[in-house]
Structures are given as structure tokens and as C-alpha cells.
């Protein structure tokens, strides 16, 4: 019996035809994806610089070197799909549905102004700066608001999906999770529920090899966190998290599988955390992580990987590829010249807006505990 089921599961996974989705991407898609990689990278770099300059306070959870996971997973979503980003996915908030126009305020997803206002803790944050960092969201933009409690939004993701189906929709809900957070009980409860009800929930595991100061082997007994899926009889795919196209392929497989009513799945994206857990942890991380491991982990910069692919596919010349050279550089090594001017301009607008946005008035601290009217 066990064997039969394992076989079935294997069959389920084999049914996935990797590469079919990315094969359909146009040259413009490739360019847009590369641009989005720059965008995510620049967000990170720029915030670090702003903090160094003293214009920003608070902890930064860098997605440096993990951008392909975000870009690749978001690129194939429909506007109505929901996402649930966590601390390391800050760019996801403004990159959702960004294809509909970076500056289009009607698109699903937040404006960069809103996201920056959140980073700076200003009243124009979607949450009016009541909770910090990535703890924002938007009901109308289909972004689930997270708490700090890791994996804590996966049940809500399942609930959103359930409600959507009940209302006749076919939206997919994509949740992000660090590999360490998969140990949480609520991860299990939520995925189990989603599996029982065949809910369209795709869980992207961003396996960046470390959960704060703890290496993966102390979090899980297997190499591939995608194997958690086996316990639920759902597909568990492994993607190269440094290759935006591979992420796109695997996630979109999972998304289409979900949208067609077949149920949830897990997509593990193998990546590597470039710096400390947060910027407060950079120094210690340099001690608790072996230097060689860090070097190896950073070696495949997703921007470089994408450029190579584009050059190979004739979508870009070597010279064009060399024009903006953000890849392989840390925040202190990189400068605005290493990024396309559009990217710099876009983020800069957000940041200047945020800095000029006021703090919320103090009394707001006492507001919105309850909704008064019906």
C-alpha cells in the first residue's frame, strides 16, 4: 500500500513538465525579469545605504542573493492571486503584478511609495506604521498581512483560498516561508488542511540554508525541504533559487496545478542568505557561518545567472550584459551606476516620498482596537 502511494506521488510529480513555462517567455519577459531582479537588489542595497547615511533606522532583513525566488515566483501570478510575504520578501509587496506597470496605482500590489513609507514608519504606510517591516498587507491588493510568528499566515492563506473558491473564484494563494519556519506546528496544520480540501495554496520555501544562526540540518532531517510535501501526499518541487527561470517554471507548474483544482504543493527554492539574518547580525553571521560556505553560497548571483542565460539565448549581447554590473557586489561595493536608471529612479521616488511622509499622530495608538460600526 505504502509503495503504491509513493508511486502515485511520484507520478504526480513526474507529471510536471519543467521548462514548458519559461519556454514561452518572450524576449521582453526576459528583460523585464532581469529588470525586476535589479529592482529587488537595489531595494536592498539602497536601504542599507540609507541606514548607513543615517536617514533610516530599524532592522533590515536582506533578500540580497535571493531575488530570483521573488521575481520568478511572482512573475507568473495573475493579478487576482494572493500572496503572503514574510520578512525576507520585502520587495514582493511592490513587485506583485508589477507587470501591470511599475507606477500604475490601480494594479494589484503596493506602490513603492507605500512600501517605503512602511520601511520608514510613516503614516502613508498601508498599515499607518502600526506594525513594522514586512507586517503590512492589503485586502484590496490581495496581500495577506503577516504577524511575526513564523509560518503563522499559512492557515490564513488556506482560509483566503477556501473563501475564494466558495465565492466561485479561481485565485491561487502563494505563501512564502523560510526553510526553518517549516518546523512550526502551524505549517503542518495549515498544509494538512489545504491538502485535505485540495486548496489552491502554493508554499514557496526559501531555503537560504540558515534560519538565523541555525543551519538546516538542525531544523530538518532531510536535505530537501520539499520533501515535507511527501507527508501530505502533495507535490514537492525543488527549484534552483538562483535561476529566475527555474523558479518561474516550478512555481507556475504548482500554481496551474492549484488553479486547476488539484490542490496545494510546495516549491523549495534553493538559495543562500548573503548576509546576516538581519543587518544587526552581519558581524556575528561572519563568525557562525564558515567563510567558504558563504563564498560558495554567494557565488551564483541571480542577476549574473539571468544575464548568462540571456546572452546564451541571444537576448542580450555580452556588452549589454556588462552595462550594469550589480551582480557579485555587496552593498558597500555597488553604486547607482551599477543599476538601470529606471530602477534607481523608481526606488528613489519611493524613498523621497517616505522621508517626506509624516509620522502618524500619537492618538492613533489608541485607535482601531475594535471596529465600532457594523
Amino acid at each position: 500500500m505504502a509503495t503504491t502511494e509513493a508511486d502515485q506521488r511520484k507520478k504526480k510529480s513526474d507529471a510536471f513538465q519543467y521548462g514548458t513555462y519559461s519556454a514561452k517567455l518572450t524576449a521582453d519577459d526576459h528583460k523585464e525579469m532581469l529588470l525586476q531582479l535589479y529592482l529587488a537588489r537595489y531595494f536592498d542595497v539602497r536601504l542599507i545605504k540609507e541606514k548607513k547615511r543615517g536617514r533610516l533606522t530599524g532592522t533590515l532583513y536582506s533578500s540580497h542573493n535571493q531575488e530570483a525566488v521573488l521575481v520568478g515566483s511572482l512573475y507568473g501570478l495573475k493579478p487576482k492571486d494572493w500572496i503572503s510575504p514574510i520578512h525576507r520578501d520585502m520587495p514582493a509587496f511592490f513587485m506583485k503584478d508589477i507587470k501591470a506597470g511599475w507606477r500604475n496605482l490601480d494594479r494589484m500590489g503596493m506602490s513603492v511609495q507605500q512600501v517605503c513609507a512602511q520601511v520608514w514608519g510613516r503614516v502613508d504606510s498601508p498599515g499607518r506604521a502600526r506594525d513594522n517591516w514586512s507586517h503590512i498587507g492589503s485586502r484590496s491588493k490581495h496581500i495577506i498581512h503577516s504577524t511575526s510568528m513564523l509560518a503563522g499566515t499559512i492557515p490564513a492563506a488556506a482560509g483566503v483560498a477556501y473563501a475564494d473558491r466558495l465565492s466561485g473564484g479561481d485565485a491561487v494563494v502563494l505563501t512564502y516561508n523560510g526553510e526553518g519556519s517549516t518546523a512550526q506546528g502551524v505549517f503542518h496544520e495549515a498544509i494538512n488542511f489545504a491538502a485535505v480540501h485540495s486548496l489552491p495554496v502554493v508554499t514557496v520555501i526559501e531555503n537560504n540554508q540558515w534560519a538565523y544562526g541555525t543551519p538546516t540540518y538542525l531544523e530538518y532531517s532531510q536535505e530537501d525541504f520539499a520533501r515535507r510535501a511527501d507527508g501530505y501526499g502533495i507535490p514537492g518541487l525543488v527549484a534552483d533559487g538562483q535561476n529566475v527561470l527555474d523558479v518561474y517554471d516550478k512555481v507556475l507548474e504548482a500554481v496551474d496545478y492549484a488553479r486547476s483544482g488539484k490542490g496545494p504543493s510546495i516549491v523549495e527554492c534553493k538559495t543562500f542568505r548573503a548576509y546576516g539574518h538581519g543587518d544587526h547580525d552581519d558581524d556575528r553571521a561572519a563568525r557562525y557561518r564558515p567563510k567558504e560556505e558563504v563564498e560558495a553560497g554567494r557565488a551564483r548571483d541571480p542577476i549574473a545567472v539571468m544575464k548568462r542565460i540571456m546572452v546564451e539565448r541571444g537576448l542580450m549581447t555580452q556588452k549589454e550584459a556588462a552595462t550594469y554590473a550589480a551582480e557579485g557586489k555587496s552593498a558597500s561595493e555597488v553604486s547607482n551606476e551599477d543599476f538601470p536608471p529606471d530602477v534607481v529612479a523608481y526606488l528613489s521616488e519611493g524613498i523621497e516620498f517616505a522621508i517626506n511622509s509624516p509620522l502618524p499622530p500619537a492618538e492613533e495608538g489608541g485607535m482601531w482596537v475594535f471596529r465600532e460600526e457594523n
Partner: protein
Amino acid sequence: MAVAEQVSSKKNYLTALKEAVFEEMQRNPDMVCIGEDIGFLGGAFGVTEGLKAMYGPERVIDAPISEAAIVGVACGMCLNGKTTLVEMQFIDFISCGFDQIVNMTATYHYRTAGEVNMPMVIRGPAGGYGGGALYHSQMNEAWFANSPGLKIVCPSTPRDAKGLLKSALRDPNPVMVYEMKELYRQNKIAEEVPEGDAALVPIGQASIRREGDDVTLVTYGNNVYHCLAAADNLAEEGFSAEVLDIRTLVPLDEATIIESLKKTNRLVVVNEAPRTCGFAGEVLARMSEEAFEYLDAPPARVTRLDTPVPWVKPLELYVLPSVEKITDAALRVCKF
């Protein structure tokens, strides 16, 4: 359908709850029920008996044994436009879904500066006096009273059970409903219960269950009846006790208590939760802050001892409030 089976015009607490659920499911097509064994079984106590047959498995979900997922899924549904009714098979098991209640659901409106409502009701059988032991007797409402963003009600009569549950199901905020399982089938409290909107009982209003001049007994849930019996005892001793059933803990109807204290000048608060940081203490604290000038004697609490609820009867009664303990405390206060 079980509700139709009612023949007598008097209804017990359980039937009243059932009516609230069926009526609101009928009224609100966006309402979804979720919990363990609420469908095929109809709930451990039968509150949702017949509901799945009537409204289908999509709106009446027999969930896996996973309280955190149950609450969290309901939260997601509320975020996406539904009204949810969550059953805890026993309120004791709420500890397993704790984080999803206090950190995810209770704060949602606050965190989003009002963007998102959480029309969720979490209801479940609660309370002691039934020999349920440590994990089928709890009154853990203080955990939630100390967690901003949750309303809390605890009905003691069939009318209130129906009326408060219905109001809870129309409230845009998460509401915890502590149902007194020892009252579920008590015939002596059965009463006529209105239908539809006429049944609504507003959240946040205390009920004066007995008028009196000498001492105010503030209570809720099972202990309403102990207080009423104690009031009889007190009457024999020549003291007239006013019994206030607060019904809603959060938000508390302080005005009604203060009004009463202006008259009686003496306060005894009774509940069955552990003493330290329980809601009885909260009432004492508020009244000593706000009605100090009206108090002619030290206020008193009669609560569970600071122990779990033990199983066998003599031990259970040893730790829980009783008519005798209430009478004694009230006499001490009256004679101060």
C-alpha cells in the same frame, strides 16, 4: 433538523444556541462554520446538529484536529469576506490555537488601521461543576481579556445564549462566546426565546438578575445561579443582595455596576476562573478605581482557588465557588 424538533415553547440553553446558529446561517450566506466534528456528528454537544445536511460541507467544515489551523483558516476567510463561526469542542482546547487568536486575529483590525474586519465568533462549551477535570472545565477568559481586540461574552440563560451569539455573529470584531455546558440541558432554566432579530441581545450590557440594596453580587455564567441562591440565603439573614449578570466581559458595562454600588455600597465579585489575574479581580480593580467613594466595605472576590480544576467532586467543589462560599463572603462584606 433538530431545531424543528422543539415542541414545547420553552427552550433550553442548547436549543437556544442551535437556533442562533441556524438563523444566522440562513440570514447570512457568507457565514461559514468550522470546527472538529461539527458536521457529521453535529458537534460534541449537538449545537450544529443537522447544519451540514442543510447547508452543505462547504459552509460546515469538519476540520482536522488542529485548532491553530481552524482559527487561522477562519481568519483567512474573514479577510476574504466571510463571517466565520469557530467551534472549540471544549473551550479548554483553545490553548492549542492560542497564537492564531491573540496575535493573528485579535490584532488584525488594529494592525491594518481599520482596513480589515474580523467577523469571527469562537464559541465553545466552558466551565466547571461537571466533573470534567483539568481539561474539560476551564474558564480561561482572562487570557483573552488581557489580549486586546477580542470581545468576550458569557451567557447564563437561553435567551442570552441565543441573543448574544446572534449579536456576536453580526459583530465585525472577533467575539469569544463562553458557553456554560452545565446549563446546556438544564430544564429549570428553560424559557421562551424569541425568533429572528427580536432575539438579539446587545453585546456590552449587564443584566440585573435580582434587585437589592445591601450588597451587589457581580457575576456571570454558572455562578449567576449560585449568586441567586446566595441572595436567598442572605435575605434570610436580613440582607438584600442585588445580582448583576454582566453577560459581556469585554466591553464591560461598568455603568450598571457603578449604579448598583451607589445604592448598595458593597461589592462581591464571583467567577470560576483562577483567582490571580482573573476577571473578578479586574472588576474589583475597576470599581476600586472608579467607585471607591461608594464602597463602604472592602470588596471581595469568590473565585476558583489558584489551582487547576480537579476531577472528583469533593476536590472540584473545594476549589470552585459555591453558594456557601458566596454567602459567607457576602455576609462578611455586609457585616463589615
